[in-house]
């Protein structure tokens, strides 16, 4: 067991963890932040994407001890304290960018990271950036559209709702 101290969604957390505890297990089981999901075991699906020191990271690819001293942001911290959704969250709702919701936290965290680095991505850049996030419900149409809209680009010409 090792004691780690990190910041999660702006709050300092100190816990003892086993050396083989993955960051995603730590978030889900130790902190009960169950919005971060596990959809695979090969780091392919992206349901567990969180931000570590401002970068989007699959939380199944790092150990909790590696996050010692880090700033971690999860889906639970994306909306404002009064419940106002972030621009990306609001765009996902507005454009029906989610169905079952299971991949959604990872999608939102990935999209948020993309727009931070590339505030006006092209459709191709959005699709390319989502390579590591699998959604089985939406066919990606409305996810891509939502991210384009969240970046402030006009999506009215894109077919359908």
């Amino acid at each position, binding site marked *: 067991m090792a004691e780690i101290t990190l910041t999660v969604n702006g709050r300092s957390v100190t816990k003892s963890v086993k050396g*083989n505890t993955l960051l995603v297990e730590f978030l*889900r*089981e130790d902190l009960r*932040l*169950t*919005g*971060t*999901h*596990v*959809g*695979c*075991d*090969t780091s*392919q*699906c992206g*349901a567990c994407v969180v931000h570590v020191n401002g970068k989007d990271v699959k939380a199944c690819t790092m150990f909790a001890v590696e996050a010692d001293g880090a700033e971690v942001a*999860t*889906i*639970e911290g*994306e*909306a404002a304290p009064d419940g106002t*959704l972030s621009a990306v*969250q609001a765009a*996902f*709702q*507005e454009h*029906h960018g*989610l*169905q*079952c*919701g*299971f*991949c*959604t*936290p990872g999608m*939102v965290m990935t999209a948020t990271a993309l727009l931070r680095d590339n505030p006006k991505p092209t*459709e*191709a850049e*959005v*699709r*390319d950036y*989502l*390579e590591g*996030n*699998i*959604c*089985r*419900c*939406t*066919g*990606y*149409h*409305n*996810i*891509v*559209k939502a991210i384009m809209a969240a970046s402030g680009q006009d999506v009215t010409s*894109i*077919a*359908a*709702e």
Partner: protein
Amino acid sequence: MPKDHGIGASPKRREDVRFLTGAGNYTDDINVYGQTYVHFLRSDVAHGTINSVDTGAAAGMPGVVRIFTGADFEGVGGLPCGWQVTDKHGEAMKEPGHPVLAQGKVRHVGDPIAAVVAESLEEARNAAEAIEVDITELPAVVDMKSALEAGSTKVHDDLSDNLCYDWQFGSDQAAVDEAFANAAHVTTLDLRNNRLVANPMEPRVALGDYNRANDESTLYTTSQNPHVIRLLMGAFVLGLPEHKLRVVAPDVGGGFGTKIFHYAEEAFVTFASRQINRPVKWTSTRSEAFMSDAHGRDHVTTIELALDADNNFTGLRTDTHANMGAYLSTFASSVPTWLHGTLMAGNYKTPAVQVNVKAVFTNTVAVDAYRGAGRPEATFQLERLVDKAARELGVDPIALRRQNFITEFPYATPVAVEYDTGNYHATMDTLESMIDREGFAARRAESASRGKLRGLGVNCYIEACGIAPSNLVGQLGARAGLYDAATVRVNATGSISVMVGAHSHGQGHETVFPQVVAEMLGIDEGMVDIVHGDSSKIPFGMGTYGSRSLAVCGSAMVRATEKIINKAKKIAAHLLEASEADIELKDGQFSVAGTDKSVAWGDVTLAAYVPHNYPLEDIEPGLEETAFYDPANFTYPSGAYACEVEVDPETGKVTVLDFAAADDFGNVVNPMIVEGQVHGGLAQGIGQALLENCAYDENGQLLSASYMDYAMPRADDVPYYKVDHSNVTPCTHNPLGVKGCGEAGAIGSPPALVNAVLDALNAAGHDIGHIDMPLSPSRVWSAING
């Protein structure tokens, strides 16, 4: 102006906020005090005799609570199949036992041999490694046709062979033979409908929690139909009466069919929790999901079409081998028969249609319904065949389809079903307006200038949704009714809880169903909430699959709401001192016709629960009604789809440039959600046609058990889609006139894509009759290069 509320509007989904903020409550998010964890030790060979399972060393490992093997389940029931198919000789299908944990033999990679229950998952896994299993490996049965050869190894020793059933359906032999004998042209096609894995992003989870105080078991599970699980597990496996068994399916992260079925792990955690008197939780890994979730499709077919000299379709016959896997999953037997054979007429007035299906046991994971379930297989065969016929005859593929369309409804097909409505020319007209066919030659030339081959493919589809009329399916072998149920509970202040048998796992019922109830009552949608997914809260309904939620459960909800309105009018008549016949309900106000006297919805609901001034001698207090709805027929959504592709002849890589879908879903309650359903279905169909393949080697080893090996469609594999649902022929037999939209995209899209690729290649001078899905670069390149 589009409507902003009620039927036909697209309000934002009310479930979204919890999913977008991490507040969803999926099964794996649930932990129960005192919970233990189970890890299943699964077979790593496809077929073998279990000589011994020695748990001695493992039992002493740290944290181990108990280890279970097949011997612990002697006297416990096996997992049942819910549909008995009768073969062409009048005999019942062969129905082998399916124990919760393997007994005597293992029959596929992933078959569970032992289960370790421990204080932590890590301890359970570690102990499982210390279990010594002695298995004598047997030859694996993998290929379906070899499985039926005399002398083949048998998957089940107590059966005479590997044939589950040999089913024939449709027109009589003489009519079919005559059509082919007199044909001016016959087109024949051999094809495979590739084996797929549904892959909802949430892996399955089951948590059993036994309460000794009241002898009640609760199962939290990732299910599309909690009452079906309670029925199957309670009655057939564990022998628990309904009132001692509660099944909860909370937020479920996608289903696509694979979460319909009752699985061994659900029965295990419920059983084990009772044995050890502690909660037992199982969370599937994705690798485990690939070897334990029921797979889909896996048909091998020869199909033939007879045409007369004027290119009219005169006869159709099919010969299909359908893989059942090692055991019969819950609805496995119905998929290649009643959900497939009955759709073989498609959109065409072919007078003679005969379907032959041999269902085969193999040493692979069980195969059952996956989005579309039988209908994608029927559509793919037929629409590939018609396209091939058009090419052989040198006629336009759309014109050939149009010439043979069914145009008069109702239409009784030669394969038993009666289409109530449709307008196939209208959806084809719309499709043609969406795809700029006239401009295609120029686009093809532009691609050619870059060394690329451009192709355009179309297809039609018809499907049967709104599953299903109980009296009909009962005759066909279903062991359950397929009605659904809704309870509308109006509270004193006028707010409403609607308890429904349907389950929402992405479909947005919590948003859509209130649109209907609120419109019927003329009240705000925010006053209506949907309750689903908990057998202790909802009436006995059959859940969500087969695009049935709105057509069947929604109809029950309408009927229950009508009962509410009838009773509320009686109360209003009393309050207004008027005749019940004169009471009108509009915009949430009950008024006396021709007067300005009215009472509000809330006045009536309050009177129902505070019956101080109330006709107690005539009606009971309270305002709560239940309706069960059993549909009179299936519904028949239909449509026409088109795909435009570009093929790189140097590499064989196919790029999907455009996909257009014109559907007739009947009436549409929420266009936004309908379009989302089509988008998702299209991606799954594109995935099947281009990327996805569940592969076994000749020894029955599963080669595609992770996302490194099973190619899921990703955002950069698909385009923006063009979808249209403006052609509406309302269903004639349900109160909302709805048909269902959940599966169309997956049913209608694979043939269009394959037709497009073959159009690209053949227009470039190749002569390629067919390429089996998925159209991977290597397959396309090999086809090009002979």
